[in-house]
């Protein structure tokens, strides 16, 4: 159900209510983790509400790096100017390296009464044990149900059943797939490759794969989602079984190591389909 206070966010109503409750209480939990799969609206929802509760000068977005954490320490060290507390939020927090996590410990150990820290991540299990132990509250987000996805899609320029199916409960991907037809084509190509209807050696490398470069982005995540989705879709197909593992591994590698060259690893996964 859509919440009137956060008109663009669908599903995860209990998670949203929990966050709203936390934001309303001025003297309560100081470190909160929003965990769960990406592109379901965690950051959008948090940003919308933080902006509503706090003044601009008492809120800061922090990069998941050691410099970012130092900036957070400095920012939270001062008293709030116009709000009941000061808050920082870190998106993609599970990409923080060891030094950044060590620096983060300092903030989590002795948070002042007028500070709030929000970490947004896909998997809170990747944090080091001392960090995990210091989280005061974890709000889990789950993929949207079919009904919620339909509700979301109806508000978009076009309702496409295939795309809803392809998104598998992640509304963030729906708009991306709607804007770029190449994602659907890539999905079809993956299915053809996995079922042996396309030569994996001689087929041309899709544009989407060769143009995916550099750091983690929505496009890179969408690419991984499509590849993993095609493999998952064919899990009961005996013909596709040998390739499923390759494609799942490709999607996982591309997501976990953003500096990997997608084109090279795509070709490797395709070549091994022919074995």
């Amino acid at each position: 159900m859509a919440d009137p206070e956060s008109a663009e966010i669908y599903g995860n109503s209990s998670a949203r209510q929990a966050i709203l409750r936390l934001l309303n209480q001025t003297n309560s939990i100081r470190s909160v983790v929003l965990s769960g799969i990406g592109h379901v609206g965690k950051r959008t929802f948090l940003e919308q509400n933080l902006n509503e509760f706090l003044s601009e000068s008492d809120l800061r977005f922090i990069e998941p790096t050691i410099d970012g954490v130092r900036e957070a320490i400095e920012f939270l060290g001062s008293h709030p100017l116009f709000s009941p507390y000061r808050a920082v939020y870190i998106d993609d927090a599970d990409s923080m390296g060891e030094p950044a996590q060590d620096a983060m410990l300092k903030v989590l150990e002795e948070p002042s009464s007028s500070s709030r820290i929000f970490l947004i991540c896909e998997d809170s299990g990747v944090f080091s044990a001392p960090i995990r132990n210091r989280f005061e509250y974890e709000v889990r987000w789950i993929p949207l149900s079919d009904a919620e996805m339909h509700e979301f899609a109806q508000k978009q320029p076009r309702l496409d059943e295939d795309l809803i199916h392809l998104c598998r409960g992640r509304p963030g991907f729906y708009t991306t797939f709607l804007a770029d037809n190449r994602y659907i084509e890539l999905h079809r190509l993956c299915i053809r490759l996995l079922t042996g209807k396309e030569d994996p050696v001689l087929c041309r490398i899709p544009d989407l794969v060769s143009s995916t470069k550099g750091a983690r982005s929505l496009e890179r995540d969408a690419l991984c989602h499509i590849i993993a989705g095609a493999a998952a879709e064919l899990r009961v197909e005996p013909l596709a079984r040998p390739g499923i593992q390759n494609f799942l591994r490709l999607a996982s590698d591309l997501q976990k190591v953003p500096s990997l060259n997608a084109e090279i690893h795509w070709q490797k996964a395709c070549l091994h389909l022919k074995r």
Partner: protein
Amino acid sequence: MPSLILITGEEELLKERAARDEASSSLITHVSEYTLPDELSDYLEEAQMRPLDGQPRAFILWDATEVPELPDGDDDILVVVAKKVIADKRARHVQNFQKLKTYDDNNEVLKWILKEGDSLNIDLSRVAGALFVNCGGGLRKISSEIRKLAVITPPGGVVSPDQARQVMCFSADLSPKTIIDAICEGQTVRALAFHDKLQESGDETGWILAYMQRHVLQQIRLEALVAAKVPDAAERLGVHPFLFRKMNFRLGLWSHSSLMSSISTLCDLDIAQKRGDTLARYGLEAEIIRLCEEARNGKRR
């Protein structure tokens, strides 16, 4: 009538020497040099004024694309140095210095090194190969190394590898491509030497891995395209048809299963390296050795 000498070609050092030799062999004391097109007007101004003492003059024009107006003095010499061949009937003689070939079976640079040593009265036969590998095909760099060797070697002496090692600087343009070439030749020691040299100034494992991955993938695709007799194979491989024909010589150097195992290993090493695993470098060395050995066996077959 002034003399016109045309010197063309791509070997800059040889052109430069020939031009200066021409100017000095005429025993003219007054030699003026101009770089075209910037200094063309200066040359024309100078060339049209006869000196009061009536002495002949020599003019060297660098980077010319055509022959400008000849100088006014009857005994004057004009040496025109150009990259592309210029046809001019007035030329007294024409010299063309094409890029020296560096093929395995016909390495003109090695021959030139030996000749250069002879001209300086030193024997470079034991270090010619090392000079070529260290400096690449650039004659100017090689010449500079040879001059250093000539200073420390007594006239008529043979330059030993130990002597050379003390003074030589590594300046070849090294890239992972040189490692790939050595792998294709089955030269394990050479490939590892290039690998070590490349890693000397910093960790270049990622760069080398990327080249090797591309090479192995290209090899697998090449085999598949040739087997399927695809008409536009060169285009689909993204190379010039001439290069595609040249690449066909590499067919059969590695078995299909070996290439498949290689690409798996290289991709795993790539992931390990990007996750900060320093051991990836040793895995890469092992893969270079394996591919080299197999290429050598393939060549023997």
